């Protein structure tokens, strides 16, 4: 079974109480949107925050991607709120 590295940043990290972890990638999860749904399934409703596309951005291997981005296993996935640098 392949795994994913998942990182959470800023307000999302505090809200979910999670910063970095390794997660097994189930066979039925083939893209980012499905990964989010899977996290809500196994962790509970609080994680539904990840489903709000306007409030949560996703990067795979350090590049911002849409929810339709395909996952093959081994990727570094990150969830975070819109950036506020500069």
């Amino acid at each position: 079974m392949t795994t994913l590295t998942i990182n959470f940043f800023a307000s999302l990290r505090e809200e979910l109480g999670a910063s970095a972890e390794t997660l097994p990638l189930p066979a039925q999860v083939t893209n980012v949107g499905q990964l989010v749904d899977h996290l809500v399934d196994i962790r509970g409703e609080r994680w539904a925050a990840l489903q709000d596309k306007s409030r949560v951005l996703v990067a795979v291997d350090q590049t911002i991607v849409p929810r339709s981005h395909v996952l093959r296993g081994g990727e570094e996935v990150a969830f975070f709120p819109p950036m506020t640098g500069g």
Partner: protein
Amino acid sequence: MILVQTQDFDIAEQYCGLREEAANAGAIVTFTGLVREFYESTTTLEPRVESLFLEHYPGMTEKALVDIETQARARWDVQACRVIHRVGELRGGDQIVYVGVASTHRGDAFAAAEFIMDYLKTRAPFWKRQSTSAGAQWIESRAADEAARERWVTDKTDPDVPH
């Protein structure tokens, strides 16, 4: 040159570097971002900012900034370019970000510097949390920043826009 660092930077040193690197530049445009002591608040109360913490996503930050600089160099005449962003704990009035661009003509220098800032604001993984007498809170992103970035998008099917 891209730097992500906790320590402060010296704008005179950066400016000298740009002048040395750019052989026949006629224009140098610089942007410096400062920590404001009062941010817009959703309430009418605007407590004074005691400190600001800059979180970032190590690795992706540098990658995003290099990508933004590469895009700017592809669109405009950029003879030399420097981007510095501080992370960690900052105080009101502190310098937070520097962008310097040297070009042959001023139009390119202005456009490239503003482009880099507009993309940096919305595409580089930095997040600000401010501490005031009323407690700590994460700063909300501004719709105006996303609108500023979208001005530069010529291909509206740009794949970097998440959907």
